[in-house]
């Protein structure tokens, strides 16, 4: 059981992530994805909004999204507090500063805006969409990657 407490290798983690797709489809009839939860929270926090994006959102049929992300939070807690010998380092030290927090804020803004404009994230487009052979998800995944390379190699922010 020792290996469980170490970081999991790709050939364990990757297939397990792939299994999220049939697990959600067969046990709940839901299409795997995380980023619609942002729209869900937005619509919940602004129930009287006149913006069509929030007003026309069907919160009832999308309630599962919030249950799903609650599960992610719970699972991450279990994973890092009970299933890890060495704590996972999430962010570099220089993010714990005013400028670092400003970077996180800017990055988070781009994540929230970008995923909703693109209609999905790494889960909904790259894992679920590609598994379902969606042409747009291939374009989306290439775009995600292009954006990441742009920042890392060109903008170097």
């Amino acid at each position, binding site marked *: 059981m020792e290996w469980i407490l170490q*970081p*999991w290798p*790709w*050939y*364990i983690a*990757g*297939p397990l*992530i*792939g299994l*999220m797709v*049939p*697990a959600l*489809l067969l046990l709940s*009839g839901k*299409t795997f994805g*995380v*980023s619609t939860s942002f*729209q869900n*929270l*937005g619509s919940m*926090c602004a129930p009287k*909004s006149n913006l069509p994006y929030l007003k026309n959102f069907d919160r009832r049929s999308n309630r*599962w999204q919030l*249950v*799903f*992300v609650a599960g*992610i*939070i*719970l*699972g*991450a807690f*279990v*994973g*890092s*507090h009970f299933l890890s010998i060495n704590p996972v380092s999430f*962010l570099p030290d220089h*993010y714990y500063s005013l400028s670092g927090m400003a*970077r*996180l*804020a800017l*990055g*988070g*803004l781009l*994540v*929230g805006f*970008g995923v*909703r*404009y693109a209609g999905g994230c*790494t889960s909904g*487009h790259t*894992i679920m*969409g*590609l598994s*379902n052979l969606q042409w*747009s998800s291939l*374009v989306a995944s290439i*775009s995600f990657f292009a954006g*990441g390379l742009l*920042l*890392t190699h060109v903008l170097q922010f």
Partner: protein
Amino acid sequence: MKQFFVLLIGTFFGIVLVKSEVVSWFRIQKMFLFEEAHMYLIIASAVAVGAVAVYIIKRFQLKTVFNEDVAIKAKPYQKGVVIGGVLFGIGWAITGACPGPIYAQIGSGEYIALITFGAALIGMYLYAFLQPKLPH
């Protein structure tokens, strides 16, 4: 019952996200710098398993455990897939977190990720506000 399954699957997903360290800025950085194959292999093997599963579900017209038809939501193409996609990619490289990992970082006790989360919600509102004017 359905929501219980969803919670269970979400919890399992959260554990895998943390244990595979795909929620770490360092892993994302090494992916974009082509220093490590970890992320590429995880994504590729996840898609391979997911694609086989979707094929089997469609081929044999499998039903859910509640005996309902499985309806997979399509992802229609629009210009935002490219524009929004690139913007998200930039944000992903900065924060080291896509939406799933944002929640996972918070759950792990990395509370600085609450900034990422709050900003992502503002980004979502910005999209909601600009949606009628943006090209789709």
